[in-house]
């Protein structure tokens, strides 16, 4: 019962949603499928409650018991509630969560001056690690490794003003930017395209396995 019903639900919903693409002009099929997709979207969104409950449970316990690093966990919870409080205040009181004016909405100010800089700095930090990883990994041991390295170097040089300048200074005209464009547009397109075709085939295979209950990731732990 606990296993069979979920498998039947997946089978019924999955087959119906696939059939929807073939019977799109039939109104009741289209409307029902759209409603099912909407319900699925709502259920996925509502699972954010699970995430918040887990964060609260784990961090609150650590703070109360004064475990190691409890101060950081307190900072996490305070920031989370600050953003949530400011956001719900903006939503319910001002009926909007975005603003172009500094000082208009605390939620927007916190997004623009706290979350956004933190997020882009985190990603910017990767520039250093990528550079150091490249320095260690790029060794011209054989032809494929050489192709990897030269493609990366040519793309990096061809897409920045330094590459344009270098190309001009060496009397090559716009050769470097053109080579970078060609690499992105031709061999890169071929490789990406083949990878995407492979990914699509994989998704179709896994999707069918999941719909027909051969693969049951949601029943793990039973």
């Amino acid at each position, binding site marked *: 019962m606990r296993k069979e019903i979920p498998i039947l639900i997946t089978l019924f919903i999955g087959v119906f949603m*696939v059939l929807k693409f073939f019977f799109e002009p039939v109104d009741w099929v289209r409307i029902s499928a759209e409603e099912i997709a909407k*319900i699925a979207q709502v259920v996925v969104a509502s*699972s954010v409650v699970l995430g918040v409950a887990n964060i609260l449970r784990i961090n609150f316990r650590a703070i109360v018991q004064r475990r190691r690093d409890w101060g950081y966990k307190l900072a*996490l919870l305070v920031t*989370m509630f600050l953003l949530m409080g400011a956001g*719900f205040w903006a939503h319910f009181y001002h009926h909007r969560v975005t603003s172009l004016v500094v000082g208009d909405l605390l939620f927007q100010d916190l997004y623009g001056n706290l979350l956004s800089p933190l997020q882009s700095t985190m990603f910017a930090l990767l520039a250093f690690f990528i550079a150091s990883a*490249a320095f260690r990994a790029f060794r011209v041991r054989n032809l494929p490794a050489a192709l990897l390295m030269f493609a*990366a170097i040519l793309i*990096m040089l061809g897409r920045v003003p330094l590459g344009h300048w270098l190309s001009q200074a060496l009397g090559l005209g716009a050769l470097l930017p053109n080579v970078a464009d060609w690499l992105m547009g031709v061999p890169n397109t071929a490789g990406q395209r083949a990878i995407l075709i492979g990914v*699509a085939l994989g998704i179709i295979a896994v999707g069918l396995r999941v719909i027909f209950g051969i693969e049951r990731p949601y029943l793990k732990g039973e």
Partner: protein
Amino acid sequence: MTLYEVFLGWMVVFFTLAIFSFLYKDNPIYKFAEHVYLGAAVGYGVVIVYAQVLEPDLVMPIVDFLRHLWGGPTAVYGEQYEVSPGWRLVALALSIMIWARLTKRFNWWSRWALAMIVGAYAALRLVGDAQAYLVAKINATLLPLWPMPGNPLLDADGGIRWVSVEGPSLLTNWLIVLGVAAVLIHFFFSVEHKGPMKGASRFGIMILMITFGSSFGYTVLARVSLLIGRVVDLQERATGDYFYATYIIGAAMITYFVGVKLYERAAGKA
């Protein structure tokens, strides 16, 4: 510039430098910023999910449905919804089943909701990706390989377009068609890679290496562009308008790290 704006500027500088301090080593300032980032991201996500999904697609339809049930305005039907908003009670029930995961006794309820989500998204991805990737990409790869009147491999004056940076050309089309086929052959393991298969697979590796190299270069550029953005932000806040926030916070952090280092050295000797 108001005091509030200056405060926001100092906040930006502090958290930017706090994250960059990880380049020196893992330290309490970075850990603090990391936890603040996580808290802010979760708090922001919750608000956006509620405002953009849960309220319009769950709360409002149910309120409308209940209002209609108790004799309120009926205009909500037909105008906003194609089906009765009462169906969203199913979404509410499934959401409650998902939340039941937090309990020990009823956590198996969540499987019903998960089964519904998995079924719906597996089907949507299956057909959507087949259309967007499989069919579209195969279609885009079916390129003309021989210059014929009327196809884009011939110029307006009838000359063959051998190679071009933009648009189709003989070399471009051959490389794309052979490249896609070679990479697919490389990942086709049902036949042993011997003879012509080996050659094709080897060519596929070359194409893949150029693809990975290009993607790597592109990623590096994107990250460096973000880095430039952060440096510009720091530069803007290093002026008198912001009371030299970048210099003061930067100096304070350096002083802190030097102080800790000296303290640790002294403690080690003792």
